[in-house]
């Protein structure tokens, strides 16, 4: 009797001692993110809504909007997103389906398809500028096969359309993999039975994608589009590397105001615009792709 009591007493005491453990384990992360994430963000709001004297005002926002570059940055960022995201969504879905098709040499395809995930937008911009520049590889190839008589100026600073296309090519090349990873994970969670059943009943490939895979993949599609759109508003170095000063985007203006003009208030105002647009885009995706309760599978 006594021996049992002696054994159980320390056990309960020990259990109580461990109850605080998870909090101690997450404390460093919570503290760090509080200091280096949450606090700077609050400061960012403050910076954007204050003028140089520290008084609350919309001066920074007014300076930002009155600057001619604001409209340019806004329109270029939006144009880029409109061109890039739909194309890369289709491409990412296609790549995920290809990886899911268990092709021979799938391991090698997997490695190659994943490569852009670890490539920065600066490196992508530099690589694609070697392709698009007047004495670059694209002109070499087009000239070689006889399509072009003489080099074409792809990166023409006076043509916004051409600049958008060039940056879009680099962005599609670099950031499609990111969507593919999320979509592929979603694809793998779909039980094989469903597609096989559809196949038995005579559904072709596109019917299977449309009626089986698409509805079941919807949560993953939502996340992939959501995160990709959020990151798309941050597009930065690839634009500078490819267009020089020919085009500008919101993040590049934020950088310019902070680093060159040394006005952190206007820079912060730009970052607030980027945040606002990201959250608005996220809301649009969540609403547009929501699944009505009665049609939910789980």
């Amino acid at each position, binding site marked *: 009797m006594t021996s049992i009591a002696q054994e159980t007493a320390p056990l309960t005491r020990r259990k109580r001692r461990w109850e605080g453990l998870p909090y101690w*384990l997450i404390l460093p992360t919570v503290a760090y993110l509080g200091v*280096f*994430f949450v606090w700077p963000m609050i400061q960012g709001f403050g910076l954007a809504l204050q003028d140089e004297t520290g008084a609350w005002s919309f001066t920074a926002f007014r300076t930002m909007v009155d600057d001619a570059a604001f409209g340019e940055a806004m329109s270029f960022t939006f144009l880029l997103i409109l061109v890039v995201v739909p194309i890369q969504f289709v491409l990412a879905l296609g790549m995920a389906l290809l990886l899911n098709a268990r092709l021979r040499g799938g391991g090698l395809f997997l490695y190659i398809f*994943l490569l852009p*995930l670890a490539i920065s*937008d600066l490196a992508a911009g530099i690589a694609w500028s070697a392709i698009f520049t007047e004495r670059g590889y694209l002109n070499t190839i087009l000239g070689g096969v006889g399509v072009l008589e003489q080099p074409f100026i792809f990166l023409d600073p006076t043509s916004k359309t051409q600049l958008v296309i060039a940056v879009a090519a680099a962005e599609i090349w670099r950031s499609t993999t990111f969507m593919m990873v999320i979509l592929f994970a*979603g694809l793998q969670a779909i039980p094989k039975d469903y597609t096989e059943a559809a196949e038995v009943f005579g559904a072709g490939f596109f019917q299977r994608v449309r009626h089986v895979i698409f509805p079941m993949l919807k949560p993953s599609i939502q996340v992939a589009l959501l995160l990709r759109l959020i990151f798309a508003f941050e597009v930065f170095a690839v634009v500078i590397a490819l267009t020089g000063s020919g085009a500008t985007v919101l993040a590049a203006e934020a950088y310019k105001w902070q680093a060159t003009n040394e006005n952190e208030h206007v820079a912060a105002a730009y*970052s607030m615009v980027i945040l606002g647009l990201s959250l608005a885009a996220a809301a649009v995706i969540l609403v547009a792709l929501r699944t009505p309760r009665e049609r939910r599978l789980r």
Partner: protein
Amino acid sequence: MALPRIRVGRVFAYVAALAVAAFILAPIYLITISAFSSFDAVYEYPKNLVPTDASMESMNIFLESDGVTDSLLRSAYVAAITIVLCLALGTPAGYALARFTFRGGNPFQLALVSTRAFPLIIIAIPLAVTYLRVGIDDTVIGVALAHVAFTLPLTVLVTASVFAGISYELEEAAMTLGCNRLSAFRKIALPLALPGVAASAIFVFVTSWNEVFAAALLTLRERTLPAQMLAALDTSPLPYRLAGGFFLLAPALVVIFFIRKYLLTTWGRVAR
């Protein structure tokens, strides 16, 4: 009737996969041959698509330029500090999320996921202001601290997913055999989690190595490689840019090889 149609689909799949692979590999191939070519070859037109005379001329121009080797070293330091801090802070939190159900656990996890909705640009600008005041502007440690802020949430989520994949019963068994909680973690859970944790460290490395916006804002002379490249874009000669671009891109080839499996399992799941 059905059989040939499947074959056609199969052939189409291979053609499509090869086309995508070619699209991805082409720019990597082109910047590689440009980086390892002579000065004349970089400027010649039409270009040589197949290198006949590989040369270290461009590469040497880049590596011997002012500040390049320093910036390479700095990038490595920043990445190393970021990895150490991220794992030291994040692994315990990941373990807590995987092993305990505690009040506040779910909101904590949700908060980590939602940090991704906030562009790093928003925190980079106020950090630059604070760093000036505190006196860690233009330092390697300052850039690393910012990089930890961007990479810590994902590190916690990924390590949580790694630990969740290791059966807790193994640790319990060790504890019945005389281990305490800490030694059970050290001897059982940690070794089993090591490959996954290493993969997440590699991912932190590549994120830090690639990050350009904050690095460029927070430094002036103590530039990391991407910050150095960004600053030199419109002033440097073409061979310099191409060789530098290759240095930025090269780690991807190695990194993806080591973490490709984890990217699809762990990351894909975490992202949802």
